[in-house]
């Protein structure tokens, strides 16, 4: 391969421009890819025939409003501490957010690793420590490891309100959606570190969709787009990888083993998309004492999205954020209405940061 970075990118772009003769719709599924595509100006470099859609790849954004309300109801319990990743703090529930509950005196802790919950539970034996867990297959193995360690240590004051989600079932829902007409998927690099290539093969075999695992540098994403263009033009769809330095074909067997020990698959609700069978991680019976929903007999309500908020349509690639009437007016990163504006990886937050102006290339 050419050794100079610029020369390599130039070669990939030449190839893409030659290959993209007919219109094609590609979806990047990962929120980190969405940000990287903006940061590297990739839309501006592509031919107009390629339309890039942003998909449901931000775990904060796809967490259902009812699930957030359920976590907020736990946060208001006496002698309770909620531990969660920082992204979740400002996500609005129906009435408040975790940040507002913290301002009201409730004990909400930001953690950077699930394993910190062990120390929190050991140091605060008088409190119930509840880990509010979101994230895809990249993040879920850390939760599995936490649960196994908590079981090993016999910790009874630690549980998990678990809204982890699986990626392949939502890809299937998107592949089946006739209104989207996606030709190919830019597959999430770090979810694939855990899953490997195999779980995506149905995209080509059942639905004839191209797919390619991508890394996160600009060149990585362009390489994946070139591979997708080849698959689409030559009608040879498959699950390929342009990120071999991190993704093994078989994935991470140790992480998959931990996931399988602690969780089975179960239904999950995706904001704006609705319930998707087998897209969640349900606790196996052996570990049900760590399931906060069972432990506290929690009711997870079904809640409508805030009036006017079109996060659901943004998450499924049906509109771009600028087509939402609240974007950049009622909904901004300082006062977000929907979750896509909260997380830095949310599509609306990425558009707000990089593409608030009138460049039509961003609407492609």
């Amino acid at each position: 391969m050419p050794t100079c970075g610029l020369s390599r990118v130039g070669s990939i772009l030449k190839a893409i421009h030659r290959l993209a003769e007919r219109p094609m719709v590609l979806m990047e599924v990962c929120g980190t890819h969405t940000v990287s595509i903006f940061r590297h100006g990739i839309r501006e470099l592509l031919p107009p025939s390629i339309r890039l859609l942003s998909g449901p790849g931000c775990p904060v954004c796809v967490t259902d409003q009812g699930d957030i309300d359920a976590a907020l109801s736990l946060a208001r319990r006496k002698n309770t501490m909620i531990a969660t990743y920082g992204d979740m703090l400002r996500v609005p529930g129906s009435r408040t957010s975790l940040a507002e509950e913290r301002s009201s005196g409730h004990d909400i802790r930001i953690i950077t690793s699930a394993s910190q919950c062990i120390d929190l539970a050991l140091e605060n034996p008088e409190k119930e420590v509840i880990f509010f867990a979101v994230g895809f297959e990249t993040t879920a193995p850390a939760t599995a490891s936490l649960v196994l360690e908590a079981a090993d240590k016999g910790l009874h004051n630690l549980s998990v309100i678990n809204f982890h989600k699986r990626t392949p079932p939502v890809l299937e829902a998107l592949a089946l959606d006739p209104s989207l007409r996606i030709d190919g998927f830019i597959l999430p690099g770090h979810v694939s570190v855990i899953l490997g290539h195999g779980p995506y093969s149905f995209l080509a075999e059942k639905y004839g969709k191209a797919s390619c695992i991508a890394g996160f540098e600009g060149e990585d994403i362009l390489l994946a787009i070139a591979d997708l263009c080849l698959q689409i033009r030559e009608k040879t769809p498959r699950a390929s990888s342009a990120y071999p330095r991190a993704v093994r074909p078989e994935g991470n067997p140790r992480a998959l083993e931990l996931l399988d020990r602690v969780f089975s698959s179960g239904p999950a609700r995706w904001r704006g998309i609705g319930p998707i069978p087998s897209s969640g991680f349900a606790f196996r019976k052996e570990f049900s004492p760590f399931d906060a929903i069972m432990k506290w007999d929690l009711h997870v309500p079904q809640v409508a999205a805030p009036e006017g908020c079109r996060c659901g349509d943004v998450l499924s690639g049906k509109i771009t954020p600028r087509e939402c009437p609240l974007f950049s007016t009622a909904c901004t990163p300082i006062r977000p209405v929907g979750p896509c504006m909260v997380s830095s990886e949310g599509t609306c937050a990425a558009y707000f940061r990089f593409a608030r102006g009138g460049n039509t290339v961003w609407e492609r």
Partner: protein
Amino acid sequence: MCLAIPYRIIELLDGNRAFASTGNVRAEVRTDLVKGLEVGDPVLVHAGFVIEKIDQDYSEELESLWSRIRDLAGEDR
């Protein structure tokens, strides 16, 4: 949120832990998810856990893609 940062393992500790560094940042990371780590290994760290060793950027699949790209870009081998 699926962001993972490249680190290098600088010291292995007991209890599935290690010290890792990137630039001037030094952090304790968990090694539960990857077996056989050694000092000096470049790794990807997500949410405090090593999720994979970083290998050389080569596969037959990627080499074949580069070959097609060079042809399409009209470059000599």
